[in-house]
């Protein structure tokens, strides 16, 4: 137990060190533009799977949380010129509140009804933002990046590193939850909600906690997005593609282990980035759809499940 902890934190430190080193060494901007998006999807997928994976509540509201994260930054920046860390912290706080409110409203629903309710909530929030003139309404809003802070000499490089830190934060939280009593309770209620209640698991409270944590992380992941694009508009910030991509990444990676969404986000995120550059963004969505269908049909436990199966077979072969 202890040793895996050391490995994990050493890995995290190495990852952050490498990210920082990249920003200092590589001159070309493209890797950071593409890398930022992949890192952002890792945070989203990891955050999503806290509720969607561990508890089995398939949330299509990722876009709502992501979009609110973007618009928290837009609002704060326009109103007060707040710096990036404040934007992210505020987005996380609002995401937590939103997770709580949405959770109260929707977590009593079962299965597909929960999923549909989260889609509904997304569109309603998007419509509200569309009608909010101060943050630009339907036409969107342009933002001017402030000066970059040292040691970075470029804003996108800084955003890249910030998102890398969010990845470490999200993964650490998800890993902690999975290994704690909370993870066990969520797994129990995923298997059988009534049996979990009758074994002492406060199911609604646990689901709410998962929804709050997941929401806070998703909003935080969205917050730097405003500065990344220097522009925000409701139909892109709340695009259903975020919800489905995130879900696809988690399912492709596998939701039984915290590493699943990370793997899924890297695989699908990288593929999408390559396709967007080489072919077109439409093909990108096509690949998303095809991979989602393929994995759900052929490998329901995702890559993690496939690896486990192979490992089990090998063990049996030896024994």
């Amino acid at each position, binding site marked *: 137990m202890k040793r895996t902890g050391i490995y994990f934190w050493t890995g995290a430190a190495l990852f952050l060190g490498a990210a920082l080193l990249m920003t200092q060494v590589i001159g070309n901007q493209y890797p950071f533009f593409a890398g930022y998006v992949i890192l952002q999807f890792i945070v989203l997928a990891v955050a999503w799977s806290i509720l969607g994976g561990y508890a089995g509540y398939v949330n299509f509201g990722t876009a709502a949380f992501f979009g609110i994260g973007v618009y928290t930054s837009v609002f704060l920046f326009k109103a007060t010129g707040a710096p990036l860390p404040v934007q992210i912290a505020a987005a996380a706080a609002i995401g937590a509140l939103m997770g709580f409110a949405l959770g109260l409203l929707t977590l009593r629903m079962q299965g597909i009804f929960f999923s549909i309710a989260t889609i509904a909530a997304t569109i309603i929030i998007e419509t509200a933002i569309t009608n909010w003139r101060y943050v630009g309404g339907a036409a969107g809003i342009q933002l001017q990046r402030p000066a970059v802070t040292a040691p970075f000499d470029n804003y996108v490089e800084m955003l890249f590193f910030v998102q890398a830190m969010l990845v470490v934060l999200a993964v650490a939280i998800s890993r902690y939850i999975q290994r704690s*009593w909370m993870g*066990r*309770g969520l*797994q*129990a209620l*995923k*298997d*059988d909600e*009534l*049996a*979990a*209640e*009758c*074994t*002492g*698991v*406060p*199911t*609604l409270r646990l689901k709410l906690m998962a929804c709050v944590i997941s929401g806070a992380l998703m909003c935080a992941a969205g917050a730097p997005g405003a500065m990344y694009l220097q522009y925000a508009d409701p139909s892109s910030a709340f695009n259903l593609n975020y919800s489905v991509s995130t879900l696809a990444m988690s399912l492709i990676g596998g939701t*039984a282990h915290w590493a699943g969404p990370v793997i899924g986000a890297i695989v699908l995120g990288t593929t999408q980035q390559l396709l967007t550059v080489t072919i077109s963004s439409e093909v990108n969505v096509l690949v998303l759809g095809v991979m989602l269908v393929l994995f759900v049909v052929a490998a329901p436990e995702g890559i993690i499940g496939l690896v486990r199966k192979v490992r089990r077979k090998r063990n049996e072969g030896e024994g």
Partner: protein
Amino acid sequence: MEAEPQAIQAPLLRISALTKRFGGFTALDNVSVDIRPGERFGLIGPNGSGKTTLINCISGAFRTEPGTVTFRDEDITRLQPHMRTRRGIARSFQIPRPFRSMTVAENLMVGLDFAADTSVIVSEAQRREAMMSILTRMGLASKANVSANQLSQVELRKMELARAMATHPKLLISDEAMAGLSSSEVDEVLDLLMSLAGQDITIIMIEHIMQAVMRFSDRVMCLEAGRIIAIGTPDEVMANQRVQEAYLGT
């Protein structure tokens, strides 16, 4: 026999004037009964007579409209199931409901994580120890690391009882834990329940296998169409004419 001291003792569980309706159908009709501490209480009745509904009302899966449930002098009518579990009411299910993605050990750990007696069990090591001791007692020690999906019917039944025991219950409700078992397996589970009873644990047993209920129970209650038609010692209930009619058909 023991009737005198029990009359003085406060009941462990008091059900008063409980009624449960589903749409126009009345599943329980004004049911009142006291369960005494340490009692082995049998609950019988034909299919659809309201036995499982009564259990669901006690464990909290159903809310009741009129009527109250009092447990250890506390009104628990409005408590959610997990609050009742933490106060000491545990149950098994008629159709086993294990946590299928977990091993047997993990199934028990859920109970120990969320409802263990925190005055005794504090550390993770103590929880593991408690888990192994329950499994040993239930004869499942060798299955600790087996997935709940791979258990046989009798093992599933035992695991459900073990998981219930992990919540350190004062009242254990066994909902047809012997259904579908062979006669030697029935004896096995019955012996287990017998050994659990006594030490601070009161047991309500729902069962269709009449021999088992009669052998097990201090007191038996028979429900028919949501009403109590007989309550008393096993012999008294068996001798009751309405019970015989209910079981032999009209």
